[in-house]
């Protein structure tokens, strides 16, 4: 590994202050992304993965608030930047693709003019150059007849094309970090395959680091180098992609992997995780997974498990693996 990571998040805490209480959506998350690396952030709905993304972009709106932590990007803490400075970074060095492409675009402007807006904001280019750039980038993401389609409005695009256009917009200023929040979730599988292919190609072309957020482990497998697994506002396991799928250590990761029906395994019965994802207003004390964990010990409900490095770059937050804890063997 060369040099410092491109992005490193230390002890990030983002809470939502609602009438019922405080929702600890992100509660002490540590993450790092190296240059040209693709990190997958996986977890179920409500585990806080999108909140991590929005916190990096500083797009958390009240009642939400970033209450602690640091987000280091290129030697600066993004949390200490002024709103003015953040605006320059957003869409420039750090850009984002949102989950629902059709509703993330402005319906009253043409697709081309929306992409042009991003270019004008961040780059010093002339009018006709901007138009050329728009057509060029639309061509790169595989929009047929880009000169003509740039004049279309978002409703004239299909879901897959909208996602391509969103991607074009995000890539238009050559970002160093691209955050993609469930970029294929709302698409049909055959369209998803097209977008996956596009992202793989773009990864090679642009050399940007990507934070890919998703719950579809198949999609994550195809694109990522490393994976961080989140549960109830915390990262529970972080490792290289292969290690997560072959040697997952955290009981939650293991159970999650075994509970998905897979095309390549004909298991009669799926493994289930008892109970449901906890509400984050009053998260369980200690390890947040302990009420659903089959290996739970007395300590799990009292103390929070520390992150332990159990292999090269493989960390896990579970008492089964602490140095002085027991070394119960899993499959």
């Amino acid at each position: 590994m060369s040099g410092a990571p491109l992005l490193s998040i230390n002890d990030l805490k983002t809470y939502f202050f609602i009438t019922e209480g405080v929702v600890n959506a992100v509660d002490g998350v540590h993450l790092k992304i190296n240059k040209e690396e693709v990190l997958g952030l996986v977890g179920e709905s409500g585990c806080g993965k999108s909140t991590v993304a929005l916190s990096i972009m500083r797009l958390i709106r009240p009642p939400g608030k970033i209450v602690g932590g640091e987000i280091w990007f290129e030697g600066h803490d993004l949390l200490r930047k002024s709103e003015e400075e953040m605006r320059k970074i957003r869409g420039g060095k750090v850009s984002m693709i949102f989950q629902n492409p059709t509703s993330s675009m402005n319906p009253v402007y043409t697709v081309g003019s929306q992409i042009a807006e991003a270019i004008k904001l961040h780059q010093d280019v002339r009018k006709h150059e901007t138009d050329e750039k728009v057509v060029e980038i639309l061509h790169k993401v595989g929009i047929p007849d880009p000169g003509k389609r740039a004049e279309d409005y978002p409703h004239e695009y299909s879901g897959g094309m909208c996602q391509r256009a969103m991607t074009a917009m995000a890539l238009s200023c050559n970002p160093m970090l691209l955050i993609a929040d469930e970029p294929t979730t709302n698409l049909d599988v055959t369209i998803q395959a097209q977008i996956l292919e596009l992202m793989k190609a773009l990864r090679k072309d642009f050399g940007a680091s990507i934070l890919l957020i998703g719950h579809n482990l198949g999609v994550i497998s195809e694109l990522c180098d490393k994976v961080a697994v989140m549960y109830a506002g915390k990262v529970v396991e972080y490792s290289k992609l292969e290690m997560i799928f072959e040697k997952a250590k955290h009981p939650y990761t293991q159970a999650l992997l075994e509970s998905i029906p897979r095309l390549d395994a004909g298991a009669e019965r799926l493994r289930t995780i008892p109970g449901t994802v906890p509400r984050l207003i009053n998260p369980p004390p200690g390890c947040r997974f302990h009420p659903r964990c089959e290996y739970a010990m007395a300590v799990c409900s009292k103390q929070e498990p520390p992150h332990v490095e159990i292999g090269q770059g493989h960390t896990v937050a579970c008492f089964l693996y602490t140095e002085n804890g027991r070394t119960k063997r899993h499959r």
Partner: protein
Amino acid sequence: MMEMPETILEVRNLKKYFPVRGGILLRQVAAIHAVDDISFDVKQEETLGLVGESGCGKTTLGRTILRLIKADAGTVRYMGRDLLGLKEKELRKARLEMAMVFQDPYASLNPRMTVADIIGEPFDIHDLAKGNERKGRIVELLKRVGLAPFHMYRYPHEFSGGQKQRIGIARALAGDPKLIVADEPVSSLDVSVRAQILNLLKDLQDDLGLTYLYISHDLSAVEHMSDRVAVMYVGKLMELAPAEGIYRNPLHPYTKALLSAIPVPGRKAVKNRIILKGSVPTPIDPPPGCRFNPRCPHRQPICAKEDPEFIEVSKGHFVACHSRK
């Protein structure tokens, strides 16, 4: 020798078109061919999986079979009886034996009714049980789906998504059905909860001898659940075969592309992935010939002219494709 499984549901040439109106007079200007001449059988105690992408008409097909939507043409026979010709009163009775589990448990339970009233409603409508017997049967149903008797006095908002879907399943079971149409029963649930519901559906099938029509866009879940699988594309069936046949030996180019498009957890890439061009065409006045021909990698001149017949190419394996004759 095993006894040949009896056919419980026989669908023949079923059609459902929705009118598209336009102009000042709101005349019908086009039609959405949601279900377009579909025929298949469902055998007793099997699970027939119905897969397809969004907008292909799979939900409409499920609803048309149960007569929640009126069909335009064709027949649906349930245990030999013509469902589409039944009078209102007879239909109500027949509906006891057929139930539906809906996609969105958040929207399909009345928020103002207690769980007991939701599950007990079929008893009231059909006058099946009253007083203590009604209560006893509700408790029994709750236990069957993995809930506790004390849950009966609660309201839907007090439950999580997975529990809500359990309530939806309990309601479906109230009339002692033989056939259940399950329309995307787990797609709105958290990943870790999906397995619980899929396992529950399997257990209920084993215990009660249920027959399922399992509608979903998730091909991995369908493989897990189904004995046979039907693949739908823009209002038509493209292929129908035992699950083994669909997943190990798919014949239709669309089925092949669909299967190869699924990313597999733990794998960097799927070998020989077929990337289809373009997107699913609208079912409004679809193209002539095979519906799939504009995107098909093996297209021939005939494909744009003639609609391929749905033929049995090997035992129990049906396919609608000109290159398979």
